[in-house]
């Protein structure tokens, strides 16, 4: 397998479609022949980050770089940024408003979940400019 690059746009304020990109990426990884545990780890982490893009930022773009050894996914948005990353990473910390909780999100578990299911996770954020999350899952 050569390097495969995939790109997805994530729409803002389209809650119904949130998760569409993660689902497509999951199916592509399946077609490329990765094992189900690796695929699931990527899918869950990217889904959490995609949902965050929709509910906390104004949508964004997702780029996946896939090699036989490693799946790298870069999720970039132009949302408000994260003022305190350490705080945001805490289980249970959420700024989600009541209407987002009613949709089943805002438990404050998304970023901790991304950390849990990936081998590497990096958050690059600038207040008022946006947030880029880079995650890596090794193929094992």
């Amino acid at each position: 397998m050569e390097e495969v690059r995939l790109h997805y746009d994530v729409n803002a304020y389209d809650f119904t479609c949130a998760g569409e990109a993660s689902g497509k990426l999951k199916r592509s990884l399946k077609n490329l022949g990765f094992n189900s545990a690796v695929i699931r780890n990527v899918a869950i982490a990217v889904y959490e980050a995609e949902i965050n893009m929709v509910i906390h930022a104004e949508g964004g773009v997702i780029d996946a770089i896939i090699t036989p050894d490693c799946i790298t996914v870069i999720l970039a948005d132009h949302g408000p940024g994260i003022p305190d990353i350490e705080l945001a990473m805490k289980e249970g910390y959420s700024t989600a408003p009541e209407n987002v909780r009613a949709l089943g999100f805002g438990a404050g578990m998304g970023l901790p979940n991304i950390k849990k299911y990936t081998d590497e996770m990096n958050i690059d954020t600038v207040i008022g400019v946006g947030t880029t999350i880079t995650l890596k899952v090794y193929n094992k």
Partner: protein
Amino acid sequence: MTVKEIVEILEGKIIYGEDYLDREVYKACGSDMMSDVLAFVKEQAVLLTGLVNPQVVRTAEMMDIQCIVFVRGKSPDMGIIDLAEEREIVLIKTDLEMFTSCGRLYSHGLRGGSGE
């Protein structure tokens, strides 16, 4: 436990997945918060939830969950059913509330992620 047994125990109704009555589930989780569900992977699990929106199906998709039970008599709309159909995820509804649904499945031997 099979999908068929779940339907019987919960006095439920299959909304999608008549073809998968023999599908086996070994674990269960119940929550209305999707990130709580996403925190714990369980092989061949059933998801019980009071939440009814497309993200329930998408959460199940990411987790490889093959059966969803909507509790408290809630019904998914066609958009949700179509999404589940494309992913071959069984949808069941029951009038029982969350606590009772979980309790019944537990007393029939189904367990959560920790196995307790």
